[in-house]
């Protein structure tokens, strides 16, 4: 059982380039999230999805886009990368409302992105 898998682990981008961070989970979780982690700032929610075909903005969505075509996959797209997007990105999932696992997020190992 792999849990939440993120790729790539590390990436360096030039300003203005675009890329996609991949996230896949094999736990049949309905809810998926993208967070960014900056030193001393905790985690900020970028986008979330409550099921296939449904996505919505979190606290810091500007400069990002997501899609959720399947239950398993939740890619995060960075368009026109900027230095302010240098961060560590975490994907997480949870079964959804109800049940003992509700609200217990399972996190991926993270993707460290540097924009130069």
């Amino acid at each position: 059982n792999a849990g939440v898998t993120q790729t790539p682990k590390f990436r360096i981008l030039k300003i203005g380039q675009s890329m996609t961070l991949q996230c896949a989970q094999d736990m049949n979780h309905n809810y998926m999230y993208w967070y960014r982690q900056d030193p001393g700032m905790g985690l900020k929610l970028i986008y979330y999805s409550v099921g296939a075909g449904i996505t919505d903005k979190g606290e810091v969505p500007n400069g990002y886009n997501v899609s959720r075509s399947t239950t398993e996959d939740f890619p995060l797209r960075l368009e026109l990368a900027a230095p302010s997007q240098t961060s560590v990105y975490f994907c997480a999932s949870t079964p959804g409302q109800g049940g003992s696992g509700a609200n217990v997020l399972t996190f991926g190992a993270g993707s460290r992105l540097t924009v130069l």
Partner: protein
Amino acid sequence: AQSVAQPEDQVNVAEGNPLTVKCTYSVSGNPYLFWYVQYPNRGLQFLLKYITGDNLVKGSYGFEAEFNKSQTSFHLKKPSALVSDSALYFCAVRDLRGGADGLTFGKGTHLIIQP
């Protein structure tokens, strides 16, 4: 809006001593509270949660947390610290904002256990 505060950026404890990592919360309604741990270059791992019931919640690796409604606190504790407990600890609260039903995290507290 839901929020949590971790007043200490860093906590230093000698190995074998008890440890406490502080967290206070601000929520509307009944709080769902969580503690996560992050080891270097890893994702966050769930430690424990409080939803209802006993104010003392036991979790992984010998950690426990005490829910105090009057002080709006949810401090993480362990009776005897290990060097391997050194990590970054996050307190979090359930956040229903916009239907996300996710978590809002504190800024994190670095716990350093000295041999």
